């Protein structure tokens, strides 16, 4: 993510945010624009992760910032501005899913995570990449497969996965956001991860072997040049 996003995610300037919020409350539009500049990409990533559609995600981000401005007086500063904002984004994204629900693959939310039920095909895989994820993301094919795998998840599974992985929400927080039990969240998250792993495993193994071979070639070339 860009510098603004990085700065936002580290949470190094919560005081600045509070000052900006205070100024925005008094009608300072530029202060609010600064908040927008800081968090719009991160908010977009969240909305896009859930909705999988650029225009829908942009609409949700737009509505979220307008609502945030409208209800700035309700923001008491107990959490960071972004924490408050992402809840608005998430609520709007979930609302959007509900309103525009399409036929999705069958979900396994109700399946209990009982002991012994996670063997064989139903268990989490012990490996995804076996290598640096950052390096894998440089590969367009791998990114396309991640995108495809995300798109093949049911909306509820995807929403939970994105909330957890992008924003680090706890099970309890996700249960509140989605209006369901903590057990359902755990079940959705478990199946979302398992399905993602299954969809990515074969390709990633293959690509990593290719990358490792390329690395070996590069290393040989590099050592050759050093020599």
């Amino acid at each position, binding site marked *: *993510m*860009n510098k603004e996003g990085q700065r936002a995610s580290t949470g190094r300037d919560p005081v600045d945010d509070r000052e900006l919020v205070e100024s925005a409350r008094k009608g300072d539009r530029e202060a609010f624009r600064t908040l927008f500049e800081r968090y719009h990409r991160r908010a977009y*990533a969240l909305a896009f992760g859930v909705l999988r559609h650029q225009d829908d995600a942009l609409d949700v981000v737009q509505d979220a910032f307008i609502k945030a401005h*409208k209800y700035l007086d309700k923001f008491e500063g107990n959490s960071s501005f972004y924490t408050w904002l992402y809840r608005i984004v998430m609520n709007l994204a979930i609302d959007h899913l509900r309103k525009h629900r399409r036929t999705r693959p069958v979900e396994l939310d109700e399946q209990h995570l009982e002991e012994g039920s996670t063997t064989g095909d139903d*268990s989490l895989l012990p490996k995804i990449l076996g290598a640096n994820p*950052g390096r894998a*993301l440089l590969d367009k094919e791998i990114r396309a497969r991640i995108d495809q795998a995300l798109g093949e998840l049911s909306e509820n599974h995807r929403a939970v996965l994105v909330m957890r992985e992008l924003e680090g929400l*706890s099970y309890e927080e996700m249960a509140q956001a989605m209006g369901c039990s903590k057990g359902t969240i755990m079940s959705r998250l478990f199946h979302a991860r398992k399905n993602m792993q299954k969809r990515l495993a074969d390709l990633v193994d293959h690509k990593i072997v290719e990358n490792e071979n390329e690395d070996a070639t590069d290393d040989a070339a590099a050592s050759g040049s050093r020599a």
Partner: protein
Amino acid sequence: MSKKQHDADLMAFADGELDEKQSRELEDALARDSGARAKVDAIGELGDLLRGHLELGADAVPSKKFDALWREIDKGIEREGVAEPAKAAAVPTEAGGFMRKVGRWFDRYRGHVLTGAVSAGAVAALALLLRNPTPEMRDQQAGSGGGSNKIEPTLVKDTHEPAEIESLDTPDGTGTVFNLEDEDGTTTVIWVTPDDTVEGI
């Protein structure tokens, strides 16, 4: 770790959802079970992949799109800002007094009152036009000789029968026709009731 160790526990551990005691126990078990350790690591890797993928995706959206988005947000805020003072202006600042209450009631139901007044005026005008003339009126009309300033009762013929309404068009409302008998003859009344409106709410 037992072979039956639940994958859900591993997931909860990876997500930091176990309490301190449970975490310590699971850490000890993971130290002895490389397969379970690999599953926990894989959960972390998948998270890194997804996070990286979504963040790169967000960075790939051209800045121009977000500039346009800000302009829309700015307009949206402007609209919200216009709506709020308008609402505030409708709220009276002082309370008390019969006339003030009447004024507040009128503010609230201004649309209905005005529509009602217009409807009543229209009804009265129609009633006058459709009213059957008395014998005196008929004599007066007959003796007038058709002076240039006289209004001829052309709309309704004197049939001594109630007026017949062929059609009634009352947009945004409901129309009802009454025929009232009295000593002057039959009076036809058309009563128009406006529909409820949410305009301005």
